[in-house]
């Protein structure tokens, strides 16, 4: 790891001010992406600004039909939170199959979505549930937030403060985990909104990151059941193909994971 200067911010405003003073600063919350990347010397920020202990960025709130998860809330705190389990149990499940227990103790929802790894779990949940990402500057709809591999709508120095999820009628998540990395070989999040809309998002499948799966959405909209997907085929065009699985394999996984997610959603 190259040399850097560590700062701990005690407020979002202080973090933003520290960022603008650094020549090439980066924000750090749980650090479970940034630190490994710094060790590989793929990132060499002049300044690392720790926002992981800012009190305003930690916690979960459920009010009416909206579940708000603040950006620096750890996976462990999300998966064990009573409001999350009550309002969107699929999020609690997703978080419980992410990484391993020690990783879940540090990693945060804000860090996951800011990094937008093409095999990360949370982007699928945000897209499927129709979440809104709030930053210190604005609100961004999830559809507009994720811009492809490791790319988001965030501007330089912009800090995610919270993610707000509309509570769905039903939602489920199923994931084929890579046995070593525990990232999603393919994961699918399915949602039936309270308005009756169906939204399905897959992670780990597409070459351009998280994606909606319209063929599955159409089938589930007319019949919300795993068997409704029996005859559906997902196109392999644009899907990832690597040593872990071909594009055709992943296309089939999208369907199978969607079926399991619908079963989990009930």
């Amino acid at each position: 790891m190259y040399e850097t200067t560590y700062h701990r911010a005690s407020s979002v405003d202080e973090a933003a001010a520290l960022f603008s003073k650094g020549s090439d600063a980066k924000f750090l919350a749980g650090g479970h992406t940034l630190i490994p990347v710094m060790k590989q010397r793929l990132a060499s920020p002049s300044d690392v600004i720790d926002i992981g202990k800012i009190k305003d960025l930690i916690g979960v709130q459920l009010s009416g039909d909206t579940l708000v998860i603040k950006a620096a809330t750890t996976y462990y705190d999300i998966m064990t939170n009573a409001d999350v389990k009550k309002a969107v149990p699929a999020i609690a499940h997703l978080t419980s199959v992410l990484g391993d227990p020690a990783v879940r103790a540090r990693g945060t929802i804000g860090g996951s979505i800011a990094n937008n790894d093409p095999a990360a779990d949370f982007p699928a949940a945000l897209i499927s549930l129709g979440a809104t990402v709030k930053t210190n500057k604005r609100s961004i709809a999830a559809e507009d937030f994720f811009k492809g591999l490791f790319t988001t709508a965030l501007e330089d120095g912009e800090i995610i403060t919270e993610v707000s999820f509309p509570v769905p009628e039903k939602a489920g998540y199923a994931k084929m985990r890579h046995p070593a990395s525990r990232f999603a070989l393919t994961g699918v999040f399915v949602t039936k909104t309270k308005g009756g809309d169906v939204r399905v998002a897959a992670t780990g499948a597409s070459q351009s990151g998280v994606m909606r799966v319209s063929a599955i959405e159409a089938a589930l909209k007319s019949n919300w059941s795993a068997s409704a997907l029996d005859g559906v085929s997902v196109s392999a065009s644009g899907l990832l193909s690597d040593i872990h699985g071909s594009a055709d394999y992943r296309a089939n996984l999208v369907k199978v994971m969607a079926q399991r997610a619908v079963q989990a959603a009930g």
Partner: protein
Amino acid sequence: MSTVKLTVNGKAVSAEVEDRTLLVHLLRDHLNLTGTHVGCDTSQCGACVVHIDGRAVKSCTVLAGQAAGANVTTIEGIARGDELHPMQAAFRDNHGLQCGYCTPGMIMSAIDIVHRHGGELDEATVREELEGNICRCTGYHNIVKAVLDAAGRMKVAQAAE
């Protein structure tokens, strides 16, 4: 360089370290607590697991500065004098180690597992929960036995307190 102050195994300590220093190197190189190991250095193997404020974390993926002000417990801090922690004793009694390299991390993770599950553990849960700790000798069988054994001992110990 920064001065990092924290509590390690109940003692207030301070170290002058470069800002890029990882917690595991602060523990090993500056405080000479070499029981915490570096295996993979990529957050996968779990040999570096310590407790920060009571939670098992991988100290190779935490900057020393992030641990400033925190309460850190390492493998050196869990025995009571000459009396092994019940998890250590169970690893010994069940032959839960061979080369021993992964053992400090295994034990620190296992204690956290028992705490989080309140001693209500079955074999499947232990195997699932230990997925972030890799052992290349034992095949895990005796490690799982040791954790289940210790869960019972820790429950009894807690009830007696």
